[in-house]
C-alpha cells in the first residue's frame, strides 16, 4: 500500500499537475476572498450568488475563514477533476496494465491511489486556506473590519472544524470523480458528465423542484463544507453523502477488481 501511495505521488508531483493545480487553487482562493473585502459596500453584493456579507459578519470569529468557505465548492470540483483524471488516464494511457503487473492486488492498488489523491486534496485545502486567510488578514484593516474576534480561541476552533469539513467535502467530490473515472474510463467524459450533473443539472433541479436538494449528492456534499444549512442539517448531509459514496464507491471498486483490463 505504501509503495502504491509513493508511486502515485511520483505522478501527482509532476509540475503541470502539482504546481498548476496548487497555483490555481491558491490564486482563486486569494481572488475570491479579496472580492469579499473589495466589494464590501457594493450594492451588487460581495458573496456567492450576489449575497451581501456585511462588515459586522466579517468581524465575527468565523470572518477569518469566510472567504475560504466560499471557495469550498470550487475546491470540491477541482478535487473531483483531479481524482477523475488521474484514475481514467490509467485506462486511456494503457498504463493500468503496467501497474497491475507490478501490483496485482487490485484492491491494494486502488486504495493506495485513493490515499495518495486524498493527501493531494489535503494539500489543496491547506494551500487555499493559507491564501484565503492570508489575504483576509491583509485586507481587513484596509476596510475597517475589527479583527479582534478572529484571534479568539473560538475562531481557531471554528477554523479547525471548518478546515475538516471543507476537506471532507473535497474528499467526497474526489471519491465521486474517482468512481466515475473507473466506470467511464475516460477523463474527458468523467469530468464533463460529473461537472455537468453537479454544477448545472443539480442547480436547475434544486431550483425547480421544491425540497429535492436534500436528495441530490452534489448539494449534500457542498453542505458538508458549509457545516450546516437552515433546512438541511450537517448530520443529514454527512449521512446522505456517505450513502451515495458507498453506492458509487461499491460499484467502482467492484468494477476495478473484477473487470478485465483489455486496453
Amino acid at each position: 500500500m505504501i509503495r502504491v501511495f509513493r508511486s502515485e505521488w511520483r505522478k501527482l508531483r509532476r509540475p503541470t499537475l502539482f504546481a498548476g493545480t496548487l497555483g490555481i487553487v491558491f490564486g482563486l482562493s486569494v481572488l475570491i476572498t479579496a472580492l469579499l473585502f473589495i466589494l464590501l459596500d457594493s450594492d451588487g453584493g460581495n458573496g456567492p450568488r450576489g449575497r451581501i456579507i456585511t462588515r459586522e459578519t466579517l468581524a465575527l470569529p468565523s470572518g477569518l475563514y469566510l472567504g475560504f468557505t466560499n471557495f469550498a465548492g470550487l475546491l470540491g470540483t477541482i478535487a473531483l477533476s483531479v481524482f477523475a483524471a488521474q484514475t481514467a488516464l490509467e485506462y486511456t494511457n494503457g498504463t493500468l496494465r503496467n501497474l497491475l503487473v507490478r501490483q496485482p492486488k487490485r484492491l491494494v492498488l486502488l486504495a493506495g491511489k485513493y490515499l495518495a489523491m486524498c493527501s493531494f486534496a489535503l494539500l489543496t485545502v491547506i494551500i487555499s486556506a493559507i491564501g484565503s486567510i492570508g489575504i483576509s488578514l491583509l485586507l481587513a484593516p484596509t476596510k475597517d473590519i475589527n479583527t479582534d474576534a478572529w484571534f479568539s480561541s473560538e475562531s481557531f476552533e471554528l477554523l479547525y472544524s471548518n478546515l475538516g469539513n471543507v476537506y471532507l467535502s473535497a474528499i467526497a467530490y474526489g471519491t465521486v470523480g474517482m468512481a466515475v473515472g473507473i466506470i467511464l474510463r475516460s477523463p474527458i467524459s468523467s469530468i464533463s458528465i460529473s461537472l455537468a450533473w453537479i454544477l448545472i443539472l443539480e442547480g436547475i433541479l434544486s431550483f425547480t423542484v421544491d425540497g429535492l436538494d436534500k436528495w441530490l449528492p452534489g448539494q449534500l456534499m457542498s453542505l458538508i463544507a458549509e457545516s450546516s444549512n437552515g433546512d438541511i442539517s450537517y448530520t443529514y448531509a454527512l449521512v446522505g453523502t456517505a450513502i451515495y459514496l458507498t453506492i458509487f464507491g461499491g460499484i467502482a471498486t467492484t468494477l476495478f477488481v473484477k473487470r478485465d483490463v483489455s486496453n
Partner: protein
Amino acid sequence: MSAVISAENLTKKYGDLLAVDHVTFDIPVGAITGFVGPNGAGKTTTIRMLLGLVKPSAGNARILEHPISEPEMYLPFVGAMIEGPAFYPALSGRENLRVLARLGDFPYKKVEELLELVGLADRATSKFKTYSLGMKQRLGIAAALLPNPKVLILDEPVNGLDPAGIHEVRNLLRVLADSGISIFVSSHILSELEVIADHLVVVDHGKVLYQGATKDLLAAHKPRLAVKGSLVSDQEILREIATSAGYPSELSGDQVIIMAPENFAGELNKAAFAKGVVLTLLQITRPTLEESFFEITGGEK
C-alpha cells in the same frame, strides 16, 4: 521445472466470440519462445490472461509453477511489455521507470542501469511524449527488465524499430536468454522470430496450430531448387527433367522452382548438361518461417 509457462485448455470468450480456444502449450526454461499468429489470433488475449489482466473463461495456466489465479505469487519474477509500451506522456523516461520501480520496490539504481542498457541514458530526462516509437519500445523493454525477471513476456517488442534497433533487441534477447531468462515473445515479423526463437507456438483463430522447436518446423518443409538456363526455351527442358525425377515444379519469373531435396541438385545439373542446357543459376532455398507459417495456417502471403 521443465516449463516456465504451461497453459492447459486456456479459453476466453467475449460474448459469442471465442478469442482463445482451449490453447495448450508449454514454454521451456531458458529459451526464447516465439508466439506467432496473425492479427486477431488471440495472442494478446492469451498474454493478458497469463499476466492476470484478463480472467479466463475456462482452462488454466501456470507460470513458475503458480496458477494464474494467483498472479501475486509469480509476477514479482515476471517482466512484461503488453501490446506496445504504455507510459505517462508528461513524465520523463526516468520518471516513468521510477513510478514502476517504486511500485515494485526496485532500487532506482536499477532504473539508471536499464536506461544505460537500452541506450536511453542521454534522453532520460526528456518527456515520454517526445520519444520516437523506437525509443518508446526500448523504454518498454527497460520497464519489463526492472524486476530482474525469470520470465520475460514481450508483445511485439520490435514493432516500430529501425533495422539497427531490431538488431540490438535481437542481441539483447539472446544475451538475456543465455543468462537464464525464459523469454516468451510475440511478433508479426516472422523473419525476426526465425532468427531469434528457439521454440515456437503458432496460433490462429484462437487455436494452437504448432508448438515445438523452430528448426523442426522449418525442417518439416522440403527445400526447393531455383534453376535457370541460359535460354528461355531451357525452362521447359528443366521442368521435364524435374517431372521425370518425380518432383513438381513451377515457373517464377525466368526461374524454374523445383520442390526437391538438396541432393537432387547434382543429378539435375548432370541431366541438364546432357540435354545441352547451360545452367546460369542453381540455388538451394529453404522455406522461411513465414512460408511455413502460411502453410500451417492455410493463409496466403
